[in-house]
């Protein structure tokens, strides 16, 4: 139900007195102190938004798990992350490399040959998936990264949507 409010007048607003307004200010301050937005979040959001102009389909984080890494000793973890969008499921495994970069192995379902871009703060890396939908980035610098699976049809028609993930911290 969307009741019309054509007048644009909110009588209730008029009833807020100074004490109410002060209370709302106080409530805001309290929540800002207790549960502040992470300071780096706007930067990560802006990083994600640098995709303007692309016809995009947003993939949502669907699952994430971590296991101790076999490749690198110590506290490093391998992470497996699954993203779902309307047309595609993307699963990636992130393993630490000895040189401090990360290796990313991925699978697309349904399996398809697609161009896949890993955007990082510095630049972007591009690989292609094989017909089983597998792809790999050998060395990705640590920090923010975002996957963009380019639209399948883009070479021919420019139609079709690219699938993008939220920014990850590798």
């Amino acid at each position, binding site marked *: 139900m969307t*009741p019309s409010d054509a007048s644009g007048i*909110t009588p*209730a607003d008029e009833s807020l007195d100074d004490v109410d307004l002060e209370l*709302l200010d106080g409530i*805001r301050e309290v929540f800002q102190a*207790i549960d502040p937005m992470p300071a780096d979040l706007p930067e990560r959001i802006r990083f994600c938004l640098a995709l303007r102009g692309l016809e995009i389909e947003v993939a949502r984080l669907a699952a994430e798990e971590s296991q101790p890494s076999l490749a690198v000793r110590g506290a490093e973890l391998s992470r497996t992350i699954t993203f779902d969008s309307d047309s595609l499921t993307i699963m990636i495994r992130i393993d630490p490399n000895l040189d401090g970069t990360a290796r990313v192995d991925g699978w697309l379902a349904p399996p398809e040959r697609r161009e896949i871009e890993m955007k990082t703060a510095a630049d972007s890396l591009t690989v292609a998936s094989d017909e089983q939908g597998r792809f790999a980035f050998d060395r990705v610098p640590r920090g923010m990264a975002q996957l963009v699976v380019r639209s399948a049809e883009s070479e021919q028609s420019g139609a079709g949507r690219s699938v993008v993930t*939220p920014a990850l911290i590798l």
Partner: protein
Amino acid sequence: MDDRTPVTVRASQPERSERIARLVNAARQGSDAALGEIVAELSPLLWQVARAAGLNLSDAEDVLQTVWMRLLAHLDGIHTSEALTAWLVITTKREAWRVSAAGRRQLPADNELFSMLPDQGPGSEEQVIVDDQRRILWQAIGQLSPRCQELLRIIAFVPRPDYTALAAQLGMPAGSIGPTRGRCLAKLRALLAGDLEGSSQ
């Protein structure tokens, strides 16, 4: 900037609405700087919306990113500050609901404010709040119903000129957000005045 420094998000003057409308317009025409300003201005509100819906920290971060990415596809239909705030808040609520409903991660046993705060042990909230008055306010908020807690938490971060557009979309009939908010505020005032014992709502 220190996270705890109160940021003034409430400029209730019409200039704010006009400024946001200009930024939306510029963003639609491709200005990343304008879009970045909008992100900086409204993300703190969306953070509270996502957290009030019961999301943990990392789910809330993902939801905010998803919402802003989805906005790119909807910018063409959004022309005013009110419409922008309403679209962002309702989309954040929907995305938060979708994440919770997917049940893919452990939600707190109940959805209430106090159970989902950063786990720093009992009393840590009070330590964060140095000001006595604010501490008393925090304790009073904790005695409100979960619905009042969520509503006041969100409303406190909404720029006041944008209330109207939000009312119709917050899942309550337009016009009733006022009275509901009024009841919640009245209850809070009574609690602060020490007129009420416990929760009767």
